[in-house]
């Protein structure tokens, strides 16, 4: 059986080496690419990213990659957005002003709360390991993927998060000072991880392996 062809979108994000390494470790043939032609023939597409929303979206648009990603998403092949990559899939982002995202996930990217529900200060950026809450409801569309996301520790580093406004097939949240924040979600062929599966030890590697079987 041939290795799955994974393309990691190259739009200037700095953390691509670890993403590539983790997917290769899980048995994929990985290319880092900014070519629409290469994106078109990928079996799986990964949109990585660390940094600010406006720079991210501007880079994608100026390289014509917004269209390539949109076209890929219409083919029903799996697409994973990681951290800023997931946020860029949203309708809008509020970092340094309101900007439009790729609108593949209905909702907005907004700042994390600064206080717990009891009024204590929270440190920002949120850097560290989050534990996703276990969700007991199986979801008809999740292809068995979601049990790899429930009740597990993952590494996150962010100041903004995705707040869904429309229908999302399945979302896994974590407790952040009493607030429930989306840690990962799946909508049709799109998987979004606010955390970094490539930096989340065994639980992260398991998510990547399972994603490659979608």
């Amino acid at each position, binding site marked *: 059986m041939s290795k799955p062809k994974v393309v990691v979108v190259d739009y200037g994000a700095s953390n691509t080496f670890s993403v590539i390494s983790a997917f290769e*470790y899980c048995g994929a043939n990985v290319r880092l690419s900014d070519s629409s032609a290469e994106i078109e023939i990928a079996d799986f597409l990964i949109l990585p990213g660390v940094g*600010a929303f406006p720079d991210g979206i501007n880079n994608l648009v100026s390289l014509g990659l917004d269209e390539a990603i949109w076209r890929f998403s219409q083919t029903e092949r799996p697409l994973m957005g990681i951290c800023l990559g997931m946020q860029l899939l949203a309708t809008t982002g509020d970092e340094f002003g309101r900007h439009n995202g790729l609108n593949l996930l209905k909702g907005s990217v907004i700042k994390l709360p600064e206080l717990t529900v009891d009024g204590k200060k929270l440190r920002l950026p949120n*850097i560290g390991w989050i534990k996703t809450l276990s969700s007991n409801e199986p979801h008809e569309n999740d292809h068995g993927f979601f049990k790899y996301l429930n009740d597990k520790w993952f590494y996150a580093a962010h100041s903004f998060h995705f707040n869904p406004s429309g229908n999302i097939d399945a979302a896994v949240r974590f407790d952040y000072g009493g607030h429930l924040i989306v840690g990962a979600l799946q909508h049709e062929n799109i998987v979004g991880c606010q955390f970094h599966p490539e930096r989340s030890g065994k639980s992260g590697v398991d998510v990547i392996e399972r994603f490659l079987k979608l």
Partner: protein
Amino acid sequence: MKRIVARLDIKGDKVIKGIQLEGLRVVGDPVELAERYYLDGVDEFVFVDAVASLYGRNTLSDVIRGMSRKVFVPITVVGGIRNVNDARSVLRAGADKVGINTAAVQNPNLLTELASQFGRQSIVLSVEAKRVGPKSWEVYCDSGREPSGMEVVGWARSAVEYGAGELFVTSIDQDGTQQGTDLDLMAALASALPVPVVASGGVGQLSHVVDILNYSDVSAVAIASALHYDKLTIRDIKKELCDKGFCVRNTL
């Protein structure tokens, strides 16, 4: 939750360890030690490039790349990062965060430039501090050699405003001694700053880790010689913290 971080001071392709940032002794191979700690459940690594000016970037980048293929937890690289290009090459080799000390003291605007290029969560202020009074510490540059004349809390606050998203603090007095951490230094910084603080320097026993987490609101504790000399294991530390009621990532 509280993170347990393994600190590896690297010279060329070897892990070394000093005491109070002086006197370097080889303790092992970085990738071997890193794999061991990763399998034992470490949450994160900090690589300190101890003689950044002598060895080129390439040796360190090779070490980071080697690690990134085998250990899948975050890596911060500190040492010798002078500008955006240095940061970019280290991040492209697999590091998740870069730690800046001397270059930031000389030009704090560098923190702003780096944060805007790579995101605040990737930019760590590395501080090396030595006690100069009962509740006062001086910031040192150049691996603990050059006093800067600045008081640590004021400098750290300012650096965060310029763009640092996290603080990595080394107590020069306690480094390598295994006599316990500088509780007051870490408490002062954790309470003064809105970003996560990682405490480094002095852990020799399990009780030292419990003490620093009870005494201050640091987000993480970095351990070097106690791990490298096999005095403590990550597993022991996490079990102890769990038993004492701290929230730690369960890797058992």
